[in-house]
């Protein structure tokens, strides 16, 4: 039995004023408005699922984590304060944290195998640049990532897109911890400049 009024729909946000809309919707959702949640879902499920899948990779697990995040939005919408940041950023920060938590617990389970595999085969790190897809925002981020030094780019993307801790990044790149921390900071700051930061 399907619930009435529920139809499948891709959750990629389109249309105007989406960012403001998300803020307003989240406030309505906090008041228990299920219709507003449906609209919020349409706006944010694409960004949330895409980010989670980028980090978690496994499709089934990505779906599970995304569901967890979206349900958490419903549960904790009242904790969002619209005066203190945009809803989309709040949501994506939450999604990233959950995705990273998941990928790490999965990795911890198969850590030994991973280490063996790592020794046998040193993978290419710059997957981001290989996974270019259409879309202006992708193009922008890719271009700005390309402008970083290789070590800055690898440090940032291994952490953000692949969910590695900075210690793991240091191990994978055979760099001292201090160097990785500095590359991460420099990488993020350069991105800010390239993408047109609001310093």
């Amino acid at each position, binding site marked *: 039995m399907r*619930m009435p009024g529920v139809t*499948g729909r*891709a959750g*990629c946000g*389109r249309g105007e*004023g989406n*960012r403001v809309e998300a803020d307003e919707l989240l406030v309505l959702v*906090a008041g228990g408005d*299920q219709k507003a*949640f449906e609209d919020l*879902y349409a*706006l944010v*499920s*694409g960004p*949330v*699922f895409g*980010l989670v899948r980028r980090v978690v990779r496994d499709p089934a697990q990505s*779906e*599970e*984590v*995304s*569901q967890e995040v*979206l*349900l*958490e939005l*419903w549960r*904790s919408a*009242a*904790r*969002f*304060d619209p005066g*203190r*940041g*945009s809803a*989309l*950023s*709040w949501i*994506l*920060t939450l999604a*990233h*944290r959950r995705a990273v938590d998941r990928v790490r617990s999965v990795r911890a389970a198969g850590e030994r195998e991973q280490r063996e595999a790592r020794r046998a085969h040193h993978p290419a790190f710059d997957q981001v640049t290989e996974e270019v897809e259409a*879309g*202006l*925002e992708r193009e922008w981020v890719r271009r700005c990532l390309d402008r970083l030094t290789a070590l800055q780019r690898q440090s*940032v*993307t291994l952490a*953000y897109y692949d969910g590695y*801790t*900075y210690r793991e*990044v240091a191990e994978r790149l055979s760099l001292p911890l201090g160097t990785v*921390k500095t590359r*991460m*900071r420099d990488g*993020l*700051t350069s991105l*800010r400049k390239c993408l*047109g*930061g*609001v*310093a």
Partner: protein
Amino acid sequence: MSVLDRLLRREDLHSLAAPYALDALEPAERLRFERHLDGCELCAAEVRALSEDAVRLAWSTAAPPPTAMRDRVLAAVRTTPQMSAPEPERTTAQLPPHVWGTRPPPARVRASRPRPLFVPFATATAAAALVVASLFAVQAGQAQDRLDAERAQSREIARVLAAPDTRATTDRDAQGRSIGVIASVSQGRAIVTLSGYDGLAGGHVHQLWLMHPSGQPRSLGLFDGDTPLVTSGLDNSATSLAVTVEPAGGSAQPTTQPIVQLALKSLGFGE
């Protein structure tokens, strides 16, 4: 600890701002750094800026989720209670001023023309400076064990939601009280939510039962207020769920008439 040690330690912690913004700290380190933020204005400002930068990396990854996910999430929302907003005085007390900074919240500017969702990085992140702080608010507002319990429960709920045969139903009575159930026959699991059934006399609980056409009711657990009850071991021959009021601690068998009963047929049981 000598002054020099302390300075070195501070220096060391400062350098964790970028890994923190990228979610690249281990849990213990993350906590230590968040504690450090309480007393380090410099770090808080840096974390704010670096977190804005990190969120930009997310904009480029959007992808349409599987269509079935929408059904599951919306079904879950129908039966999942919401957390209340943190009480104002607690918020103020537990939000260190430096986390927000002295900068007033950025003014929101309405788009004067249609624009795609992910393009304007600058405007996108102008208000995002305080994202990290919002997360602090959530975390500071609750005891860690409470958070852990909620996370564990969310995971269990997510597991039921992820089943291919998950279905949901709700039943509302004339007084607006309702019972909501999301269940998967293949997993034998269900998430059950009561709402509106408060005003329980002290020393009493709501107990959930699985009813069979032949045989004794089987207890599925006790409700804790309006928190969803996640149960397992539902067999296909079960016909309905029932809730009774029982003495604290629950009973081996129902001692009162059910206050609400819900047939499981519409959820795929007994097919």
